[in-house]
C-alpha cells in the first residue's frame, strides 16, 4: 500500500481539470500539427494573436464564441450567395428526460445564428421535440449534440451549460 502514487495522480488530474497543463494558443510551429519546416509557418496567423482579443472562456478555443458574435467582436458573413435565405428561429426546447441531471434547455436562437436548419434537421435530429433519442455516451462519441460540441463548439467540460434548468424537485443552481 503506497499512497504517494495516487496522490500524485490526483494532483495531475486536478491540474488538468484546472487547465494548467498544456499551454493554450501555442505558436503554430510548436503545435505538433503544423510542420515547423513549412515555408509559411511565420506567415500564417498564430491563434493567440486573434483569439486573445475575444471574450475569454476556459475550454475549447478559450473563446466565448457566442459573446464574440453578439458583442460585435466578430462579424462573420451569413451567406456567400445573394439568394440564400437566412433562417433564424427564436424558440427554446426543454428536454426533461435527463435522469437525475438538470433539464437541458436547447436555444434555437443562438444555434440558428451560426447554423442553418438543414444542418441538424432531419439529419441529426427529428423536428418533433422528444422524437430523437440521445444520451451522453453517444454525445461524447460524436453523435447528436456531440457532432459539434467537443469538436468545434464548446466542449463537454461543464455540464451546467446545457443542463441548465433545475428539474422538478431539484434545488436551483
Amino acid at each position: 500500500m503506497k499512497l504517494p502514487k495516487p496522490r500524485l495522480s490526483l494532483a495531475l488530474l486536478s491540474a488538468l481539470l484546472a487547465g494548467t497543463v498544456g499551454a493554450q494558443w501555442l505558436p503554430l510551429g510548436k503545435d505538433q500539427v503544423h510542420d515547423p519546416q513549412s515555408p509559411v509557418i511565420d506567415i500564417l496567423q498564430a491563434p493567440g494573436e486573434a483569439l486573445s482579443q475575444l471574450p475569454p472562456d476556459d475550454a475549447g478555443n478559450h473563446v466565448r464564441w457566442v459573446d464574440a458574435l453578439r458583442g460585435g467582436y466578430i462579424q462573420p458573413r451569413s451567406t456567400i450567395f445573394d439568394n440564400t435565405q437566412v433562417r433564424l428561429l427564436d424558440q427554446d426546447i426543454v428536454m426533461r428526460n435527463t435522469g437525475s441531471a438538470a433539464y437541458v434547455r436547447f436555444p434555437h436562437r443562438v444555434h440558428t445564428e451560426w447554423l442553418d436548419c438543414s444542418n441538424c434537421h432531419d439529419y441529426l435530429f427529428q423536428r418533433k421535440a422528444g422524437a430523437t433519442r440521445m444520451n451522453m455516451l453517444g454525445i461524447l462519441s460524436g453523435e447528436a449534440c456531440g457532432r459539434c460540441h467537443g469538436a468545434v463548439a464548446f466542449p463537454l467540460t461543464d455540464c451546467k451549460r446545457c443542463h441548465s434548468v433545475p428539474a422538478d424537485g431539484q434545488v436551483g443552481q
Partner: protein
Amino acid sequence: MKRVWGVAFALLLPAGAAAEYGDVVLNRYSDDAGMRPVVFPHWFHRMRFRCKVCHHELGFEMRVGANDVTMEGIIQGRYCGMCHNGDVAWSAENCDLCHSGLPGLKTHIVGGHRTGGPGRW
C-alpha cells in the same frame, strides 16, 4: 486501481497534439502526392464566416473524412475553391498556405479539449 487512473488519464489528456481546438488535418491524398497534409483552422474561418456558409451553402459534411476534397474540385470552384479563388480569398496556387501540416499525420480533428470527446475519433 491503476487501470482506473489509466482510463481517467486517457479521457482527460488533450487529444494527442496541442494544436488549436477544431483544427482539421486532411491527408487523404496529400502524403501520397508528396505534399504536406492540409491543416484547416476552424477558428480562423469562423471569425469571418458563420458555420452555415460552409456547412450549408458550400456543402461540407460535418464529419471529418466525409468530404472528398480534391485539388481538381477546388480548382473547379467546389469546396475550398468556392472562396479560395483569388476573389474572396487567396487562390489555390498558394499550395503551402494550406499544405502546412506535419507529413504523416492522419486525417482527424483536434477536439476533445479536456474531455474524451469526439476529437478522439
